């Protein structure tokens, strides 16, 4: 039996340990980080098996909730935590490519980013969620500016400003809830949410929704996304798309379903999601820069997830979670590949990358990732989009479905254009062989994408628990 708290305590332990190790060996710290994320992924996998039997509650400090803090891990939280740690493990291998000093500090920030995102998913306490949100975002600020060039600084600055406004809103929402219910435990809040004044309740919901929307890349609050992704080191762009973003959208799901269990206010979520999809996909189509295109595409995909949550039927939420998993895997893969392509072409422009992916070690995973993100049938991304569509259909959101499909077509269009360019014949002489730190994570991620696409039964088994999640369970 495994305690969820280990997923947080062990990375912390390793992070606090690494400055001491860093005095002797910088290389040692980098391998320590790989080891820590691998250990975490394993533990998260075991935790997932346990959570499938029944939700795991880990009481911290020995005080019953709501007196103390409790970690609340249902099957859905466990699978998101597992995917986050798995992707984090893959990216930590790619981290070996980062050469810029101070590398020990970089490794610590990265490990704590993973820890913060995991904590956001596992916790069952509202204020604790805020603390982990801050851990995640402060680690992200530091990493976004790590390149110490103008692009990186500007992206990080935007991220800091918008992120701080978001966290102020989260705190305001917590203050509103606390002032009426005098509790911070999510399930306690859920049990007594009906006794809140309706106006205060809606204000609290909006504050929390906007606050977590920053990390979830929701529409009016996502202007930081392209700049921060563009300016960050390549592994960090990959990590941003799959760790804090997924943790943020899971926090949104917690707010919507676990705490507030709204049914008549969900159209608001759908509209926000749809706006996000449109903003992301259409701007992505106009981008010439690879990382910016992927960043905008990430916004579009996050919009689809938020929409799926907003439609609110079992099928649509299942789709949203499937999409979260597929997007975390696929986007991380594409960003790692993008890092290689930019390195090979010595330019961030897509048109300079002619034929750069003709090496099978890069090309095949890249193709798999892109097809999965586009939502092509045999790969992981297909089920997510399909379920969201079917869910919307059953609710009669026909206009929204049409718009959603249109956005998906735009997405297919620009990915097809990108694939065509990178596989085109031409300057074969310039194609270089990737080294192990690049292709190993790519292959790991590609294999997972294919496996859960071809054989989705395990994921679907986990997602059967969506019904209890929507009803307010763990």
């Amino acid at each position, binding site marked *: 039996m495994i305690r969820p708290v280990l997923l947080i305590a062990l990375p912390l332990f390793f992070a606090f340990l690494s400055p001491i190790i860093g005095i002797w060996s910088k290389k040692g710290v980098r391998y320590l980080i790989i080891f820590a994320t691998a250990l975490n992924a394993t533990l998260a996998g075991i935790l997932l098996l346990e959570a499938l039997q029944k939700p795991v509650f880990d009481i911290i400090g020995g005080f019953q909730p709501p007196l103390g803090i409790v970690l609340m891990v249902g099957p859905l939280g466990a699978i998101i935590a597992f995917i986050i740690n798995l992707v984090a493990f893959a990216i930590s291998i790619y981290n070996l490519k980062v050469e810029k000093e101070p590398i020990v500090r970089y490794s610590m920030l990265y490990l704590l980013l993973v820890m913060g995102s995991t904590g956001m998913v596992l916790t069952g306490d509202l204020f604790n969620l805020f*603390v982990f949100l801050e851990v995640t975002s*402060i680690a992200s600020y530091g990493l976004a500016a790590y390149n110490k060039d*103008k692009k990186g600084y*500007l992206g990080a*600055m935007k991220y800091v*400003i918008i992120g701080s*406004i978001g966290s*102020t809103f989260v705190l305001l929402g917590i*203050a509103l809830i*606390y002032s009426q219910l005098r509790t911070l435990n999510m399930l306690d809040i859920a049990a007594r949410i009906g006794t809140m004044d309706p106006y205060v309740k809606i204000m609290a919901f909006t504050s929390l929704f906007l606050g977590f929307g920053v990390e979830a890349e929701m529409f009016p609050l996502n202007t930081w996304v392209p700049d921060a992704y563009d300016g960050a080191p390549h592994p960090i762009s990959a990590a941003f798309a799959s760790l804090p973003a997924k943790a943020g959208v899971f926090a949104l799901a917690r707010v919507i379903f676990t705490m507030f269990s709204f049914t008549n206010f969900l159209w608001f979520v759908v509209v926000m999601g749809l706006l996000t999809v449109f903003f992301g996909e259409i701007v992505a189509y106009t981008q010439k820069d690879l990382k910016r295109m992927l960043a905008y595409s990430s916004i579009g995909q996050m919009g689809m997830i938020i929409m799926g949550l907003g439609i609110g039927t079992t099928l649509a939420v299942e789709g949203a979670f499937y999409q979260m998993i597929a997007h975390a895997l696929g986007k991380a893969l594409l960003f790692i590949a993008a890092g290689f392509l930019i390195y090979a072409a010595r330019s961030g422009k897509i048109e300079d990358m002619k034929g750069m992916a003709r090496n099978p070690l890069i090309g095949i995973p890249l193709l798999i990732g892109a097809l999965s993100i586009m939502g092509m049938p045999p790969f992981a991304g297909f089920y997510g989009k399909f379920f969201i569509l079917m869910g919307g259909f059953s609710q009669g959101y026909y206009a929204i479905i049409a718009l959603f499909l249109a956005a998906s077509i735009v997405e297919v269009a620009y990915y097809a254009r990108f694939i065509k360019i990178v596989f085109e014949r031409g300057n074969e002489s310039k194609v270089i062989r990737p080294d192990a730190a690049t292709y190993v994570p790519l292959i790991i991620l590609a294999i997972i994408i294919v496996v859960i696409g071809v054989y989705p039964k395990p994921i679907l088994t986990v997602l059967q628990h969506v019904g209890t999640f929507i009803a307010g369970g763990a």
Partner: protein
Amino acid sequence: MIQYYYLGSIALIAIGMYIVIAKRNLIKIILGLDIMDTGVNLLFISIGYVKNATAPIENVPGPYVDPIPQALVLTAIVIGVSVMALALSIAIGIYKKTGTLELDEILGVKK
């Protein structure tokens, strides 16, 4: 009637928000974020206040005020100063690269 403490703290939050949106100087914006933080902290503490009560320390007789918001605000203050220090060091980095702190000039150069 709305309480003056609440009004004051919401006013601080609104002033901070105004600075962040209207001002174009990076350090000014960071100061604005700090004002917003302070406003939220004051709001939290005033939520926990109980009339004619004392601080929640057992040496003095009760009734006591609500201790939870105080614990939360302790956390929030430290988080606020952490964000501020990091934001300032990013601003210094921007200054080193561009020689200015004005957002308009920085973004204007980029065009």
